């Protein structure tokens, strides 16, 4: 059966070879296509023009301060999870111009550049990262001010999500209620079955794109098969909390989970806990954790001027609460110690973010654990403060 128009929320069955026509279809609509690629031994987002460029057949092994990619016979197109990149760099670029000022006859003309961003389609977005996207939307679009650059790039984004079939030891989306099943906020969502993909249509744009692709309607069995992949993974992740004892004795990486019960008050009632200075003894204040975190949004603005001083750009670049400059005032730096900076970061992620944006600032992607050079693990820090070290 070949039907052209797929309704939103419908499930379509698509042959594996058809994935290329999805890319081609997006190109035809003017999208640049981005997807997971292997660069320097890690999965990052890069240009994706051929499905064969996907890291098909690879899985990743992640632990505190450790990351390794390995071929696996069982692995399909998307069986690695998240790498150091996330959607953040596309919507909130590491560097961008906020204001352009030109002086003519002593008067400044100032305007925010409108770069009219290229429509971007990103493949392989996981449930945790869709939640991170929704969180950054709240930061940049949900308040009294709207960040215009973020907004225009956001409107030009097309998301091809993927349901995870396996999780890394560092993943704890099940604790943060952000996965593993993709539930919304996508244009299309893929679930890989043995011989094909189940494609869930999430938006009108997604439906439009599917008109260029050969598909058949899913049978109830297909839908069940697709759903049970997420469900099996979720159930498996949920046993982690109970397996903590056996986990400790094994050589394998500890499978993360985070007890979020009353976490807001737990952390804010313990702002003077000795654990902050203990973790600070290990923390290098390198800011890696904030850079890889898909929700961290701190930035600083600097001036870039030509020699005449008549052409000036204001540039925003990612910054981190782990630097001394972040809280610098000429009357004194507020957060003078690494302990106070780690405390700011963790309490912001897991407690005060909720006060500010009505959601946790952590989606359980585990990036900050993997990419911390000394393997500091926020789930361990919270457990230590809770006093039930696991």
């Amino acid at each position: 059966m070949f039907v052209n128009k797929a309704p939103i929320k419908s499930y379509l069955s698509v042959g594996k070879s058809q994935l290329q026509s999805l890319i081609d279809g997006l190109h035809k609509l003017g999208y640049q296509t981005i997807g997971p690629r292997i660069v320097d031994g890690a999965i990052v987002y890069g240009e994706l023009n051929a499905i064969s460029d996907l890291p098909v057949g690879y899985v990743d092994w992640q632990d505190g301060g450790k990351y390794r990619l390995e071929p696996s016979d069982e692995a399909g197109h998307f069986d690695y999870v998240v790498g150091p990149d996330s959607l953040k760099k596309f919507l909130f670029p590491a560097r961008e111009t906020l204001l352009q000022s030109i002086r003519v006859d002593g008067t400044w003309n100032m305007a925010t550049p409108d770069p009219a961003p290229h429509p971007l389609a990103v493949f392989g977005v996981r449930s945790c990262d869709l939640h991170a996207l929704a969180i950054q939307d709240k930061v940049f679009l949900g308040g009294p001010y709207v960040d215009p650059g973020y907004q225009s790039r956001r409107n030009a984004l097309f998301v091809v999500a993927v349901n995870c079939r396996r999780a890394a030891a560092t993943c704890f989306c099940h604790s943060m209620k952000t996965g593993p099943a993709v539930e919304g906020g996508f244009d299309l969502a893929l679930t890989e079955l043995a011989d094909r993909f189940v494609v869930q249509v999430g938006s009108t744009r997604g439906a439009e794109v599917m008109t260029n692709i050969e598909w058949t309607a899913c049978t109830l069995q297909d839908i069940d098969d697709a759903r049970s992949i997420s469900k099996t993974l979720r159930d498996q992740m949920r046993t982690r909390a109970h397996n903590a004892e056996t986990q400790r004795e094994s050589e394998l990486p500890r499978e993360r989970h985070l007890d979020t019960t009353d976490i807001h008050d737990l952390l804010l009632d313990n702002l003077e806990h000795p654990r902050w200075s203990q973790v600070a003894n290990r923390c290098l204040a390198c800011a890696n954790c904030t850079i890889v975190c898909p929700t961290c949004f701190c930035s600083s603005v600097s001036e870039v001027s030509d020699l005449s001083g008549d052409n000036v750009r204001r540039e925003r670049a990612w910054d981190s609460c782990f630097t001394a400059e972040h809280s610098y005032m000429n009357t004194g730096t507020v957060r003078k110690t690494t302990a106070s900076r780690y405390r700011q970061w963790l309490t912001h992620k897991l407690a005060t973010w909720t006060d500010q944006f009505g959601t946790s600032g952590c989606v359980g992607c585990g990036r900050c654990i993997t990419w911390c050079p000394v393997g500091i693990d926020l789930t361990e820090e919270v457990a230590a403060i809770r006093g039930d070290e696991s």
Partner: protein
Amino acid sequence: MTMLLDQPKNCQPWTAHSARIVDIRPEVPGVATYDLVLDDPQVASAYRFRPGQFNMLYLPGFGESAISISSDPARHDVLSHTVRVAGNVTQALAKQKVGDRIAVRGPFGSDWPVNACRGHDIVLACGGIGLAPLRPAIYHILNHREDYGRVIVLYGARTPGDLLYTAEFSAWREKKLEVEVSVDVGTPDWKGHIGVVPVLFYRLRLQPERTSVMSCGPEIMMRFVVFEALARKVRPENIYVSLERNMSCGMGFCGHCQMGPYFVCKDGPVFNFRQVEPYFHLEDL
């Protein structure tokens, strides 16, 4: 979900507006007041601020600084900013002359609760440059003097030569503002108090149940002001402080100004003491 994203709000919050410096008044060593007029008449006529709010003053090539507006909110012809030379941006500002142009984004932030405090006695306790953000509140009170009971300004600076706006004190006193001034270090001809601002509370006979306190100055000073006010049974919910933090945007995007759950730029700078009570005493927060 994309529908939500298309709503028009303030679309160009990063765009600064050119403004002309129409007057510069040196106040005390290192501090001057700059009167600005926005160049675009439309922007100028739409511009309104409330006492305690601040602007981001921009000097292209140097950067932006958060500076409180120190003029009368009822005046719509000029915007005054009283600025202490600190570093890069404020030094560049100090080199500007009347007629030069800088740029303005704003106003930002919360305001002194001049309306909520109607009918109250008010203590304005400030130190150093901290009088600047309170001056619009003082002007508002002077313009609506009958709305308030006793109004007491407790003001401290390092030396007598560092006291701001002294030329205005007699006009304030004429309208029955009690202005009590103290310095840390006196001069031979100084006849006033010596000591820190919180000590000025000692001689006040307050009616605490009908008193509001608004404070701006170094955080350590404000902690003692709050301490003295509470010791005199002023209700914590009637105490307000204005906080200062590094900020790069004024809109809650840059993350620098966080203090516990707050963004000082948009939830503050003026806070009710109840809001900041759990965090106020903590070092390095």
